[in-house]
């Protein structure tokens, strides 16, 4: 802190620290904390409360009538005490009706139905598959561009990667909708080959399969794997490759012992980004299924907030997703032996 004040003076330091505090508290930590808090309670719902209140009012009327008819003074005071107690009970119940009690507990986490849990697992498994496949596709590509292509060609190839990367995710996924549609590109090709017939509606309903979401997820997020790996491989000294070759290292060994260890942070970042984007993607399943075939986990979360209005359950689902991502990040950091400083660069 002293270093900060010495460099920028008291006024600026105060401003910087205040802004950072605002960012940390109001935009990151407190929203997360509130989301977790929301996931930890449910409203107590006593549907019999209204009936109970009605009955109490009826009792109250009878007692008041009795009070008017009572002649004995001691009976009157006893009755009055009963009336007061009942009235207190009524106001308590009325307060509970307008302001229901929160009940804290893990009920939102344990309430996940079998169907929702299967969707949760399916989303994770598919995201893992997307990550592995993207890594297999991108590693040779990143290595070729970084180390084997001439500088001019590398620049051109990078430009070719940046263009689709910069185009909106929704539109890129939409392109696949047109390819996989009932009368889309693939079915038309199949028809031309005489394999399906549009008239008999024997087309392949690709969009009804989870596989079409998988195809679109890969297409949408594969480039998030290329750039981090490219960036790390690019800094590898070419002499190291030549030395490995001169020493008789096989191609596989060179990659296993020289290139991959060097590219570890890039591979970790690529895997984390690809997994996180795939597992939390709302856009891709929403466009590909168009709400017609089975939901994905992100769509379930959306429904909790905007269709069934069960925010507590929605918050619990959302935080479960955060936990999955957190576990994945920690696993990657452990597997590749990198720290938080290496992965967020």
């Amino acid at each position: 802190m002293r270093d900060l004040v010495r460099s920028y003076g008291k006024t600026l330091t105060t401003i910087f620290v205040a802004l950072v505090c605002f960012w940390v508290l109001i935009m990151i930590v407190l929203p997360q904390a509130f989301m977790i808090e929301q996931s930890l309670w449910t409203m107590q719902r006593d549907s019999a409360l209204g009936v109970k209140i009605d009955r109490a009012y009826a009792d109250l009327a009878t007692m008041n009538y009795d009070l008017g008819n009572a002649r004995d003074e001691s009976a009157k005071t006893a009755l009055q005490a009963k009336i007061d107690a009942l009235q207190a009970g009524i106001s308590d119940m009325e307060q509970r009706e307008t302001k229901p009690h929160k009940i804290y507990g893990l009920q939102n986490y344990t309430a996940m139905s079998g169907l929702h849990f299967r969707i949760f697992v399916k989303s994770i498994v598919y995201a893992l598959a997307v990550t592995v496949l993207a890594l297999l596709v991108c590693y040779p590509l990143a290595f070729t561009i970084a180390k084997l292509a001439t500088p001019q060609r590398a620049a051109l190839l990078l430009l070719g990667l940046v263009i689709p990367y910069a185009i909106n995710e929704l539109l890129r996924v939409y392109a696949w909708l047109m390819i996989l549609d009932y009368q889309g590109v693939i079915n038309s090709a199949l028809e031309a080959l005489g394999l399906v017939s549009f008239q008999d509606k024997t087309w392949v309903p690709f969009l009804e399969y989870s596989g079409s979401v998988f195809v679109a997820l890969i297409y949408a997020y594969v480039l998030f794997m290329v750039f981090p790996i490219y960036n790390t491989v690019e800094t590898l000294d070419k002499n190291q490759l030549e030395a490995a070759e001169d020493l008789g290292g096989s191609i596989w060994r060179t990659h296993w012992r020289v290139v991959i260890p060097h590219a570890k942070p890039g591979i970790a970042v690529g895997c984390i980004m690809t997994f996180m984007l795939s597992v939390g993607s709302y856009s891709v399943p929403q466009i590909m299924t168009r709400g017609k075939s089975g939901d994905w986990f992100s769509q379930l979360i959306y429904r909790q907030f905007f269709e069934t209005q069960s925010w507590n359950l929605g918050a619990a689902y959302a935080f479960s997703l955060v936990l999955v991502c957190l576990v994945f990040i920690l696993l990657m950091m452990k597997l590749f032996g990198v720290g938080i400083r290496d992965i967020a660069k």
Partner: protein
Amino acid sequence: MSTQAAGGIAVAPGAAAQSRGIDWSNVVLNAYILLFFVYLFAPLLVMSLAAFNAYDYPSVTQWRGWTLKWFDALAGDQRMIQGLLNSLVVALGVIGISLPLGLSGAFVLTRLQSRANTLLYAVLVSPLLMPGIILGISTLIFWKRFDVPGGLFLTVLAQASFIASYSMLLFMARLQRQDRDLEEAAQDLGASSLLLFRRITLPFLAPTIATAAVIAFLQSIENYNTTVFAIGGDWTLVTEIGSRFRFGLSPEINVIGVIFVAITIVAATLYVLFRKRELMAARAR
């Protein structure tokens, strides 16, 4: 796909080795790269082509002749145009919030010598490592307690929470290359810290501020997953496109696609040419 990938791995290193005659590994490698680029661009081509098809449903296979009528339809689409304006408002708001936050974060982290440094760093980059929908949800829940409903304002805050992290990383990378001697010399000569900041630190950061603003702008315009949770009853261009997918598709969306593709290609090409010129100028010096 997977066989392609396996073939690529087996071959990529092979290209480093010199073989006699036709370098087969090189041929396979080039074919692999070509295939990958076809995979990247063919869907975009399909989408763009359908924007010019007279057929009412977006398609390239049921061709009913060339037309520009979908461009007219888009130009007359008030909701889309309002969505674009909303997107621009949000993007400006995001730039206005995330640049000061990113700068402050970078200053504090580069100068704070403390054990809390790593923790603070982890918290400030955490929005980048979290699914976008989570940022939208947590912002929505937080502000609900203060009776602020979803809308453009919450969208700005939710987007800025992670876009500020991007700018912070850019500023940190730049600050690490800063020569501290210059600042110390100015201080020794009696410059006030405000003057020092204005005359030395800010000019040094100026190119990065421009880059960060452009990146923040693009990220904000593109964003869907965070926005869709924070937007409430309002809409941006991208959430409007998203909601159109639910109700009948129209080639109007393809027209937006064509415009996006065209802008991106022009911008990327200009950037490369600009960089090339810069490099040549640097070499000539």
